[in-house]
């Protein structure tokens, strides 16, 4: 470990942390609602975020600290494969646009807060909704834990040791999330994203100049990967058999991202359909930043950065530490650390909403008032954070990474119930349930059955499954495919075949509370008061 602590860097990170903490607590008063004791207010910020707020919120939500740390680390270690994050987050928006506006409309019409609420209303199955909710919670938990890995990378680079910094950071985060709900990360996201943009723009111009240009940087990378001839999967370009794995990973990840509860929370908090459409146009700005950040992996190679211990996630903080003066490195570290807090808060809120709406209200306390719902959600958000903290502190970080791998594969299995439900398809609730179970089971099994030759792990060695292990493909092919997509294909097959059979047998369909026009509904105009007395009554709600 590094023995000495860099005082200036630590001071700047602490100052930024204190600043966002104040913002987090004050956020409760921002666009003040009549009461935060309502899940629409606490959990969705009142559903009235406009274009700019939504842009910062979704940007802060989807492009997490873990992404900012892990993607360059993957490029550093493996080369071209790590760049999948770019095609992934380019096609994300065109792919998601149509579904996003439809789910926004139907959720707005029916007061749905979570993806499982929609499944409940559309397919009329509380069992299916519970499974979707639990899948969401299970997939989100390790994602929150991984945000801590992002903070940890910064803490290590500054020279601190021990768990205390992370415990304090998460305790404070839990407190203002409890207090302010979604308003806190929405406001903090302004700070986080502004810092990230400044840091990345400076880094992408200054560091290549220091290192002698991109020719030298890619040359150094080429040199490093040629030296590791025993690892055929790394390189500055994709290997011959990596193309399908690359594109299926990009496509599968793009399909999965907006199925995550925290992405849905960001979408449903928007004010209108046009707010979402405009954001689908503007959000790729973050993709560009992510692409530039990915190149930092190569710059770290060229700069001769050696990760602390075997934690490759430290390479970006170390690169900043090496190439920037201390004060600017401090700002960059602050950006990464705050970048972890925003998504962690939104994820905890999303998981808490799922618990309050789809477990507590549906199964434990059917007559719960909206106030009780909000209270349960707030307490659940504390439990979720505590759980994530325990996972990171008590278990090997590798365990969180494995869980995240699983999380991405299983969240993809909620696609049929949510996306096929958004159009007038005749999918049957029992077929959706069966498809979900098969997708989940096969996905888990394939992940278990994936060894990693480089790290020597026998199981959960990655999310690329060798086609040679599947029937019909033969033993000779070395092509791999993203595990989530194979599981999704099985899932969809069961859903389609199962629905055809169940519909032919006239199996009882669930009650669908939605109407076709609900999926196209724009925001309704605010009701205008007709009498002075009505105006007084409307005041608290609209102010």
């Amino acid at each position, binding site marked *: 470990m590094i023995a000495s602590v860099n005082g200036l860097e630590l001071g700047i990170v602490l100052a930024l942390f204190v600043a966002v903490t104040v913002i987090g607590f004050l956020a409760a008063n921002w666009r003040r609602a009549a009461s935060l004791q309502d899940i629409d207010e606490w959990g969705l910020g009142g559903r009235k975020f406009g274009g700019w707020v939504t842009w910062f919120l979704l940007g802060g939500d989807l492009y997490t600290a873990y992404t900012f740390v892990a993607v360059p680390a993957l490029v550093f270690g493996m080369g071209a494969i790590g760049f999948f994050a770019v095609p992934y987050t380019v*096609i994300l928006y065109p792919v998601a646009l149509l579904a996003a506006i439809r789910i926004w409309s139907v959720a707005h019409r029916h007061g749905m807060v979570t993806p499982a609420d929609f499944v409940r209303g559309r397919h009329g199955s509380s069992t299916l909704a519970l499974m979707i909710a639990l899948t969401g919670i299970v997939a989100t938990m390790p994602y929150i834990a991984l945000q801590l890995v992002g903070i940890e990378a910064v803490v290590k680079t500054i020279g601190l040791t021990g768990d205390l910094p992370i415990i304090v950071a998460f305790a404070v985060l839990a407190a203002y999330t409890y207090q302010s709900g979604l308003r806190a990360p929405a406001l903090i996201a302004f700070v986080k994203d502004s810092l990230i943009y400044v840091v990345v723009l400076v880094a992408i111009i200054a560091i290549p100049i220091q290192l002698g240009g991109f020719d030298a940087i890619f040359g150094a990378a080429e040199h490093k990967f040629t030296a590791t001839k025993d690892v055929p999967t790394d390189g500055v*370009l994709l290997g011959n058999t990596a193309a399908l794995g690359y594109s299926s990973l990009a496509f599968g990840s793009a399909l999965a991202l907006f199925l995550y509860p925290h992405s849905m929370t960001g979408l449903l908090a928007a004010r209108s359909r046009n707010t979402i459409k405009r954001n689908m146009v503007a959000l790729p700005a973050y993709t560009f930043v992510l692409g530039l950040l990915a190149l930092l992996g190569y710059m770290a190679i060229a700069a001769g950065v050696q990760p602390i211990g075997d934690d490759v996630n430290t390479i970006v903080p170390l690169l900043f530490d090496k190439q920037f003066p201390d004060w600017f490195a401090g700002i960059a570290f602050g950006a990464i650390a705050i970048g972890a807090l925003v998504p962690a808060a939104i994820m905890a809120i999303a998981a808490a909403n799922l618990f309050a709406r789809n477990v507590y209200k549906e199964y434990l306390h059917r007559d719960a008032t909206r106030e009780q719902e909000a209270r349960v959600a707030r307490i659940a958000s504390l439990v979720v954070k505590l759980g994530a903290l325990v996972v990171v502190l008590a278990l090997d970080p590798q365990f969180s990474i494995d869980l995240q791998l699983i999380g991405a594969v299983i969240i993809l299995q909620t696609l049929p119930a949510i996306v096929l439900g958004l159009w007038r398809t005749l999918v049957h609730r029992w077929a959706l349930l069966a498809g979900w179970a098969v997708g989940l089971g096969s996905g888990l099994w394939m992940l278990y059955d994936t060894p990693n030759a480089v790290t020597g792990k026998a199981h959960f060695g990655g999310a690329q499954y060798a086609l040679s292990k599947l029937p019909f493909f033969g033993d000779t092919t070395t092509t791999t495919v993203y595990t989530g997509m194979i599981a999704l294909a099985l899932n969809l097959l069961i859903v389609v075949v199962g629905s055809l059979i169940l519909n032919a047998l006239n199996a009882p369909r669930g009650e669908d509370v939605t109407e076709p026009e609900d999926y196209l509904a724009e925001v309704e105009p605010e009701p205008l008061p007709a009498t002075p007395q009505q105006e007084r009554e409307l005041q608290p709600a609209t102010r």
Partner: protein
Amino acid sequence: MREGDRSRKHWYWLLAVPLFGLLIPPIYNDADPTLIGIPFFYWYQLAWVPVSVAITLVVYTKTRGL
């Protein structure tokens, strides 16, 4: 739904274009031509960011209110 709305919906098909540009890696898995020292593989995919934004912008303006 109005008659004009139905034909305006065709604009949504444009959203499929970035998928063809990015999900077939053999198109761009090449070092040359480089741009300021960056291999084709990297700048080609980054160049899809503005292209995709332009496409989504066209779809947004043509389908506003749908």
